[in-house]
Structures are given as structure tokens and as C-alpha cells.
């Protein structure tokens, strides 16, 4: 099985670790070799949270510079910040809705024009799929379901050896009951958005 290295990046509170864990569970459920790694710590304090999911049998729990096959980013500035993991064949999925860091909120730094900057990103990598995932989470009537939207988009790429039914099973089993319908809806909206992009 070909090794597939996926890097997820988000801001603390966006649900990155849950998404990575669900993907790991789905891989185990469908018999795909998997290693997941997380950097914990300052997540609740508004910092960047990065995780990696390596499918297909490699042992190393981290993805080195230039070696990500897929990058899933929950925030456009973080897409730029993680770009050193990308090579010219990397598939980049990104939410386009900015979540300005505190330094921007208090006027200590400008927030770049991400629409323009994402165009630059698109020219550097294999493929860029950019859409307002937060809008889809809101359509799913669960603003915290951006992580499910991004998972849906990731599965729509068709690059994973893990089937959609496994990830949906894990969403049903491992997320809070009252959020399951909106989580599944968010997943489906993300899936469609990535197919259409």
C-alpha cells in the first residue's frame, strides 16, 4: 500500500485533534495501517495545532518538510504557515474564512489578503481546493463542525484508502449524540464542496 502523509493544521478550538483521531479510527476500522501524531500543549490558549496522519504502513509519526501528500488547513493564514510541508505535487485543502490571530485583533500586525495569497499557493502546489468551510458548518447548523466539513472534503479527494462508510461510522460512534446529525451534514457539505471545487 502506498504511503499517504496527511498534515492537518488548525487554530486551537477548531477541532483538529478530533478530526485526526476519527480518521485514525476509521483507518483501523477498515484495516489500513495508520499512525497519528499530535502536538498538544497550548491548544486551548489560541495557538496553532498541528497533527499528522500517516496511512499505508510507514512507521514515522511525523511528516517532514516537503513530504506532505495532502495538507488540510482549517484557516487560510495557517495554510501559508504550513506550506513548507508541501511539494509541487501536494494537494492542499483549505478553509478560506479567516480567524484573525490576536496580534491582528489588537492592531499589532496586519492580516494579509488571503484571497491573493491563496492564488500564489495554488500555483506552487499540485492542486488547491479552497472554499468557505465555516459557511458550510453554519449551513449544517453547527458552527463548531468545521472539522467535519474538512474531513468531508478530504474524503472527496478519493486519495484515501479508507472508505467513506468507515469515517461516517466513526463520526456516529465517537462524537456527541446530539451533534451526530449536524456533523454528518457538515461532512456531506464539505464532501460536495470539494468535489465541486
Amino acid at each position, binding site marked *: 500500500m502506498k504511503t499517504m502523509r496527511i498534515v492537518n493544521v488548525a*487554530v*486551537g478550538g477548531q477541532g483538529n485533534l478530533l478530526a485526526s*483521531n476519527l480518521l*485514525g*479510527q476509521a483507518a*483501523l476500522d477498515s484495516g489500513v495501517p*495508520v*499512525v*497519528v*501524531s*499530535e*502536538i*498538544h*500543549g*497550548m491548544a*486551548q*490558549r*489560541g*495557538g*496553532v495545532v498541528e497533527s499528522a496522519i500517516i496511512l499505508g504502513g*510507514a*512507521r*514515522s*509519526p*511525523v*511528516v*517532514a*518538510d*516537503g*513530504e506532505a501528500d495532502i495538507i488540510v488547513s482549517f484557516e487560510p*493564514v*495557517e495554510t*501559508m*504557515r504550513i*506550506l*513548507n*510541508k*508541501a*511539494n*509541487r*505535487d501536494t494537494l492542499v485543502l483549505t478553509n478560506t474564512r479567516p480567524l*484573525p*490571530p*490576536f*496580534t*491582528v*485583533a*489588537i*492592531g*499589532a*500586525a*496586519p*492580516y*494579509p*489578503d488571503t484571497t491573493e*495569497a491563496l492564488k*500564489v*499557493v495554488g500555483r*506552487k*502546489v499540485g492542486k488547491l481546493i479552497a472554499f468557505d468551510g465555516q459557511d458550510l458548518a453554519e449551513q449544517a447548523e453547527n458552527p463548531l463542525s468545521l472539522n467535519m466539513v474538512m474531513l468531508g472534503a478530504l474524503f472527496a479527494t478519493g486519495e484515501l484508502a479508507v472508505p467513506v462508510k468507515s469515517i461516517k461510522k466513526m463520526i456516529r460512534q465517537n462524537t456527541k449524540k446530539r451533534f451526530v446529525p449536524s456533523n454528518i451534514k457538515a461532512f456531506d457539505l464539505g464532501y460536495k464542496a470539494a468535489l465541486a471545487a
Partner: protein
Amino acid sequence: MDKLLTTSGGRQQLLLGNEAIVRGALEAGVAFVTCYPGTPSSEVPDTFYRLRKQNPGATRYYFEYSTNEKVALECAAGAAVAGLRTMCTMKHVGVNVAADPLMTLAYVGVNAGMVILTADDPSLFSSQNEQDNRYYARLSGLPLLEPVGPAELKEVTKYAFSLSEELGLPVLMRTTTRVNHAREPVPFQRLPKTKTQGKFEKAPFQYVTVPAVSRNLHLKLLAAQKQALAISEKSDLNKIFGSGKLGVITSGVSVNYVLDAVDDLGAKKKIKVLKLGFSWPLPEKKIARFLKSVDKVLVVEEGEPIVEEAVNAIANRCGAKCDIGGKQMWKFPPVSVDVERPKFLSRAFEYNPRMVREVMAKYFGLKQQAPRPVSLKGIPDLPGRPPNLCAGCPHRATFYAVKEVVGPDAIHPTDIGCYTLGLLPPISMADFLICMGSSVSSSGGLSFATGKKTVSFIGDSTFFHSGLTGLVNAVHNNHDFTLVILDNGTTAMTGHQPNPGVDTEALGDPTTHIDIEQVVRGLGVQHVTTIKPFKVRSAMAAIQKAVDFKGVSVIISQELCPLYARRVAPKTKRPFAVNPNKCKGHLDCIQKVACPAMFLDDQGKAQINPLQCIGCALCAQICPENAILPVKAKA
């Protein structure tokens, strides 16, 4: 029932490394667990705590969050010498705190399996240094095991208990952040019955370490090390992969990088790999045979060149002629890993698969193809996203009040916890920090040497961990400073673990609450005041009196951590909003306290995000125009 408590074996579960350690200990029938939390070890004790609390009927082990690592190890030593299987967990710097009992417990030994976890943190994701705790195995003479990932962690934890019993010694298990925080499928075995009743047979001439006893105990330890060496020589944890005339010797998480590199380089028949999982005592004979069987060998280990130096010595002794490569002892990365990852086997910072593969390819003269990272040309400058104290964090209010009273020239020794973030502007109230408790003791030296006003900060858990003795010293020796104890009712930084000062009733834990003010008074501090930091004016008045006091004064700033409060008590306060008609744009609210709920709108005026604001009212009390008011309740 939690999956970790599944009594039967056979299934695989996706586990975090730290959960795998817990499962391994449960499969070994662990009966007694102590710890002090700290990244990257915290999920080990937190999982033991959660399982015990949620499943009192299905868990038989005793668990405690101890006040510090020395206490944790001594407490565990008592249980282990009385015949219970024990585990004691801590982060790497915690072993420094526990080093005193560790060295002599190695002499005394244990009567049931005892496993000590040291979780090291290369690249300092969440630590004050990146010391290499493999040295502690050499220093103490205790055997050292180094698992490479979650599945092996579970197996090795379980094995460590029986190894400990075979040798009569505690066993050190060393992990690193990437091992603790990896997840992978872990096969389960059955849970055994747990023996929870110990027995202590008096033998003072074995257990009381007066010189005459310890002279014998040292010899006993040396004999046990020799026995450990024989086991290490035969251990499956020291295993050879692949074949060829090129060799790599590696340990820890680097094993994964090396084995992946061998695959990527298509070199399974060229490079053989000696993985050292039982890494002290090192299997000298196995290493010697390995060295004699190859032409070239590369040693790949994060941190200090511990194995590398041993390999060189072994090669010398056995007359192996192979070329030995490894770290470049005196070549350091020119810049921090935050700027650029090292491109060679460095003593500083963690390794990664690409760097290891490139170093191996170059050393062995093999071709490799790797995609190049994209160029970052044309990517705009990115605003930083540093961590920040949460909206409604009481530390922010305390910092504000202290700064208003003492001004920017006072010296602020600080300590380890969320409040270390007071380092960042605009708060900028952290001037000196070396370890847990150093705020209290260093204040005496700084105030004496400079004659400047010194106001230091320490959290409640850190105060119990290492602040008490420093405070006694300061009172006894008539130091002159003010200590602010930031009592947010929990151990916030590492994930809200209880400490002796917490409200045990709210938690529903069968532990005893210890009142910080009573402790401080009991230690002889003459000027002690407890303040509520969100009552800014009265807090400032109390702080003024404390800093005017000649000698040691203590302010206890008491207010629950808002993240913790959300869990133990429902949110009741309304958020605040800026009245645009009253705001004259002083921006004190934004510039002085840096609350993440505040932002500047398009007109450059302060605004509050009602979803983030928890109604602490700090900004409302700072605003010179009284323009910040609670949002009116919906009719």
C-alpha cells in the same frame, strides 16, 4: 465501560502512546500509581485518574496526583518495597526533582515491579530545557527501556514490571514527545487480577541507608546491573532488522525514521539496523558482533551522543575496524529550530524522517529521491499566533493590578504555569525563571543584589510543588519581596489536574483540601492578604500595602480558572460591550491587558466579541470613560 478497561484480549484499539502506557500497566496488574503531571507525560496520570473516577468498581489500583515528583517517587517506593506493583510518572525535568530518592532507591531496590516513566521533550514543545534523561540510567545504575511507538509502549510497560521483579530494581522507561503523543493500533491482552494488599517485613539492615548498610547495597546494585547486562544481551528489544555490510545503530523514536529511510532508499539488503530498546546496560557483546559484521556504521539517536560514545569505546575494545559516524559533537545548528530545522545529526532539537534519510544517504553514498519543499517566495508576511491568556483569565487582572501599583521597573521572578505567558507584551511581567519554585527563592537573591522592588508570581499547584521550602527560607532569612500566589483553584496549564489547594468537594474527590492562606501564615509570613483580582480597586489597595511592607509579604489572588470553572459550575455572567457613544478611543482596554475577546473595528475602536467574553469586567474597570457595560439581558 472504557475501552482501556476491556478485560479480555485479542482486539486492537487506536491508542495514544500515553494511553498505551496505562493499558500496559493495567495488563501488568499495577496496584499503586503516583505522579506529578507535565507535558508530554500528563495523559498517563490523567487517564489513570479518569478511569478510577468513572469506574470505581472496575479499577483496583490506588492513584494519586502527588505534590511533586520527589514525593511521588518516595510514596511509590513505600508501596513497592511493601510488595505492590507500582508506577510513577513524570516529565524529564521532574526526574531532577525526584533525583534524590532515585539514586538511593536504586541501592535499596524494590520487592515488586516498579516502573518509573520519564517523558523527555526534544525540541522543547512544552518545557524549559531538553535534557537527555538517558543519563539518569547511567547515573543511578537502573535499567532503561526505550519504546518507539504506542504498540511497543504497551508491551514494554508490561514487560518492565516483570524485569523490575527479576532484578529487584525499579526500571526506567524513557519516552519522548513524539512517542507519547503518537496514536496507532495497539493489540490488547487480558487484564489480570490485581494484588492490592502488600506486606512489609522489617529488615532495617537492607532498607535503612546508613553508611554501613549502603556500602553493601552499592555492591548489590552493581551485581544487579551485571545481571541486567546479561538480560540486555539476550533481549528481543535489542533487535537487528535487514542485512548488509552497512549498519545503523539507533534508539527511541529515531528507530522509526531509520527503518522508514531504509525502505525509502530501497536498501533492506544493504543496510542492517540494530535497534536498541533495552538501552542500559547496553548489550556490549551484541554491539561488538554487529560492529564486526559491517564496514560502516552510523549511530542515530536524538539528544546527547550517549550510545555513540559507548559504540566507539566498544569498537576500540573489540577491535572492530568499521568506520563509525554520528553526531558532530561541536557543530551546533546556527539558529533555533523555530527558524530552521537542523540538517545534520545535532545534539540540539528533535530529528525528522527527511533529515535522517538524507544523512543516511550521504553517509552510505546511496542515491535518494525526495520531493523538494515548495519555495515560499510570494507568500506574504504572516501575523504570529502566539498563545495568550484566555478571555476572562484572572491572571490578567492580577498582572494589571500589580503593574499599576509597582510600575514597569519592579523585578518579576515568575514560575511554571499559564502565567508564564505574562512574559509576552503588553503584560511583560516575567523577568526570571529556571524551574518549578524558582520564583520564590530567586526573589531573595534578586532583591538583595539590586535593592529593587521585587514582586514574584507562582501558581497554586507550583506553590505546593516547590514553593513551600523557598518561602520558609525567605521568612527565616529576612528576605524582602512580595510573592503573589495566583490561586486559580486548579493545575490549569497541564490540563486541570487537582492539587492540594483545590475545592475537593466540587470535584467529588475523596481528598483533603489544604488552605493556602493558612499554610502561608503557618510558615511564618507576617503580611498575608487574599484578594479577588476582578475587584480591581480593592486588589490594588491590598497590593500597595503588601509591597510597602518591609520583609516577606504574600498576596493570594483567588479566582477560578475560567476553563475549569466552566466544567465545575455553569456560566452565569453576561458578556460586556463597548458603548460607541461613550468610547473616546483611549484603547487602555486593548493596550494594557490584551484580552483575546477584544478587537479593533474598522474605525480603530475597541469592540468585544460576545461569544468569547465571559463577563469578568476587568476592561470595564480600566476604561477611563466607563464605556464598557454588560450586554442587556434579552427581554
